[in-house]
């Protein structure tokens, strides 16, 4: 498999007044064609910022350093027109909250077709056929009816599937999904998962999935990256990490799931404007030592994965 | 507040200072009589009027009446509007239907003709102007307040206040009302500006209080006593500019807050 996306030392910070909020610090990873990478973490850990940085949707005041290479092109240095062309055509984006992504005044069919008309030379009839085909693949026996519907006539989960359909109709090489299941009911989340599973099976597409929902991550991910306070703390094969987490934060996160007994991690996530010295997790870690308080750990290889923890490395 | 808002605030502060302490700025008492119809010169920067009053001093002393009418009328209208809007939105049901019905009726009554008719009957006076303006200008505020209250009453903190057993009056006054400031304040400023213009218009057509010094009254005299015909620009242009600049300053503050309200609370 060849490399589609390569991110090196990506840092994003925002300056507001006297405060500097370091949303993402020194994140590096690559992504192969046809691979699903899930970034998991809690509110404010910077996972969505990474998605926005790749899609070029960061607000202008964001300070970005590092490299984002997509098919050997540095996404930061290419002109905005080329970026717009990439978005929607080669890079599909799905954001949280489908009701905001869809315009309530247009039918579903119209909105999906618009993507095709905007990025290709195809005729209206041809695009309609493509939309119908896509909806049929999604499992709608009569796409004509679905195409004439308005967003408010379907549930949130359904709408999210339509958003996914419209972002993937041009078979992009990369799909970025930022919290696609947040705010949906369990059974609706199932709809969205089904849609992703279909795409993974039928299309050749790399997917970056940003979520805080561990169950969703577990179902879909090939590789998983756990983020804490703007950093990746553990990254590797999803099944392996879910079976046996190494990093104390990953352990704590899994332990706080209700099915694992709801054992909370003490304390709260630190504000991103005041970075803790040493290991960023040390104030909440039960096993911290003097080293953890003093030195900032590096992301290093242990067995089959990358872990950012002094303790795991010294064992 | 953005830069436009700050500029507006600075200008309005100067006008307020003029209203509170005109003697600091004015070279003369505006009721002292000098030679009438004097042209601008070293003694009288803006000349004198038909009565021989110094126009610059008159202009500065007029700020008080204009601002007083503008802000008192706007406060009256805003209070009425907010109270009616909150009650309608909070209680809903027949109370809402009744209050909003009344609002719609008031909304249809043309304000300035109404003030002219009432002023003609009751005689002209600053308080007639204020009361009538207040009584016919609260409708827009009542409507926006109600629609915001409909939204707020379903939010967790209001529901939770109801569960906790706070009285309806407490909930309306202390939980809901403060949350309306963002949307009501810009409208309040625009109302104040509008009331000042109304005062000027009413005074200009001669239905104002002639014993009072306001920019509208000055304009009115400049017009009726031949200032305009004789090309005495220093008589009729300064009050016009004063009204425009003051209204603009108020509007700038209002608009700058409106922009802030759109962005809303951090979420």
């Amino acid at each position, binding site marked *: 498999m060849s490399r589609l996306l390569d991110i090196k030392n990506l840092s994003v910070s925002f300056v507001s007044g006297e405060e500097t909020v370091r949303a993402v610090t020194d994140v590096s990873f690559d992504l192969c064609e046809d691979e699903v990478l899930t970034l998991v973490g809690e509110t404010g850990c910077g996972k969505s910022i990474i998605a926005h940085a790749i899609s070029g949707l960061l607000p202008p005041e964001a300070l970005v350093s590092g490299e984002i290479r997509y098919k050997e092109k540095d996404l930061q240095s290419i002109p905005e027109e080329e970026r717009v062309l990439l978005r929607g055509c080669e890079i599909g984006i799905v954001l949280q909250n489908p009701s905001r992504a869809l315009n309530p005044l247009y039918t579903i069919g119209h909105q999906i077709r618009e993507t095709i008309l905007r990025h290709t030379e195809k005729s209206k009839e041809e695009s309609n056929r493509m939309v119908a085909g896509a909806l049929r693949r999604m499992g709608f026996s009569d796409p004509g009816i679905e195409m004439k519907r308005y967003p408010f006539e379907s549930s949130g989960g359904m709408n999210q599937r339509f958003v996914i359909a419209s972002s993937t109709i041009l078979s992009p090489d990369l799909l970025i999904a930022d919290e696609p299941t947040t705010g949906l009911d*369990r059974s609706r989340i199932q709809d969205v998962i089904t849609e992703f599973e279909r795409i993974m099976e039928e299309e050749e597409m790399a997917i970056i999935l940003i979520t805080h929902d561990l169950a969703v991550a577990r179902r879909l991910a090939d590789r998983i990256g756990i983020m804490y306070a703007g950093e990746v703390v553990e990254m590797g094969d999803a099944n392996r990490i879910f079976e046996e987490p190494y990093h104390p934060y990953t352990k704590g996160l899994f332990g706080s799931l*209700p*099915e694992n007994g709801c054992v*909370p*991690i003490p304390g709260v996530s630190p504000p991103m404007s005041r970075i803790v010295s040493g290991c960023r997790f040390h104030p909440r870690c039960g096993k911290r030592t003097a080293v953890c308080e003093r030195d900032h750990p590096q992301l290093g290889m242990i067995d089959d994965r990358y872990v950012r923890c002094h303790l795991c490395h010294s064992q | 507040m953005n830069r436009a808002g700050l500029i507006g605030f600075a200008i309005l502060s100067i006008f307020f200072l003029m209203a509170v302490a005109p003697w600091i700025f004015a070279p003369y008492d505006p009721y002292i009589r000098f030679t009438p119809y004097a042209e601008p010169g070293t003694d009288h920067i803006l000349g004198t009027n038909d009565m021989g009053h110094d126009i610059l001093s008159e202009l500065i002393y007029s700020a008080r009446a204009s601002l007083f009418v503008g802000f008192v009328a706007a406060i009256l209208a805003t209070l009425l509007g907010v109270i009616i809007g909150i009650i309608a939105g909070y209680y809903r049901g027949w109370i809402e239907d009744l209050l909003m019905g009344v609002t719609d009726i008031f909304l249809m009554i043309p304000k300035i003709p109404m003030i002219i008719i009432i002023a003609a009957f009751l005689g002209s006076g600053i308080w007639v102007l204020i009361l009538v303006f207040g009584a016919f200008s609260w409708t827009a505020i009542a409507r926006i307040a109600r629609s915001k209250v409909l939204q707020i009453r379903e939010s967790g903190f209001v529901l939770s206040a*109801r*569960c*906790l057993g706070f009285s309806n009056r407490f909930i309306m006054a202390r939980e809901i009302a403060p949350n309306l400031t963002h949307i009501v304040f810009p409208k309040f400023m625009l109302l104040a500006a509008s009331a000042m213009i109304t005062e000027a218009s009413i005074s200009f057509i001669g239905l104002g209080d002639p014993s009072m010094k306001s920019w509208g009254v000055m304009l009115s005299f400049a017009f009726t006593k031949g200032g305009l015909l004789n090309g005495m620009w220093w008589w009729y242009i300064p009050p016009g500019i004063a009204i425009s600049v003051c209204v603009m300053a108020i509007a700038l503050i209002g608009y700058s807050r409106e922009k802030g309200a759109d962005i809303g609370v*951090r*979420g």
Partner: protein
Amino acid sequence: MPLAVENIEKSYLRGHFRKVPFDVLKGVSLEIQEGETVGLMGDSGSGKSTLARILAGLDRPTSGRILYEGSDIHRMKRSEFRSYRRSVQMVFQDPASALNPMKTISRSLEDVARLAGVGSDGIEEAIREMLAVGGLDPEVLRRYPDQISGGQIQRIALARVLFHRPSYLILDEPTSALDVSVQAQILQLLRTIQKETGMGCLFISHDEAVVRFISDRVVRLADGEISSDEPPGI
């Protein structure tokens, strides 16, 4: 004394141009014992939030009765209803709107203490008590709700409500908007408080695992009717 609803029905008029009645609840009966936690599950639109609002006395049912200490709450005298209001409290889902954005946390807590009849000299003590119940740092007092985290807001909401020492607590998806590690903290806090006070709880959620963790009994609501009522199982 159990809190019970008997044969509750609720319908709304729906639609912008033509008003069509829409049944949200179609005859729901449910009883919550003191000290018991009942989990209420169902998809959005199943009527679970409507049922919660009716139980809390925020909405009137179209028909049916809500029984507390054996009497129908909508036939109570004003003073009795006021005491019902205090005994049955509710915590809401969205932390972003759970507290008045124009008040500091200290003010929000103080209002509750004053409402409960605490005099000026007892306010500080009352606020300290509420902070302790919610496991909160006094540092939050001078902040506004948009300056603190969702987890802290839900703790404050819980502390405010518990100051009235209610016999029943209705929780409408109190942790749905929170991160898992924060959710774990709130659920543990809730469990501890419930054990100490012996309150009855109705815990509404669409998350199977959360409901199973916290509840003694799980009730499922579908299309306005109870479809199952059983122990949480494994």
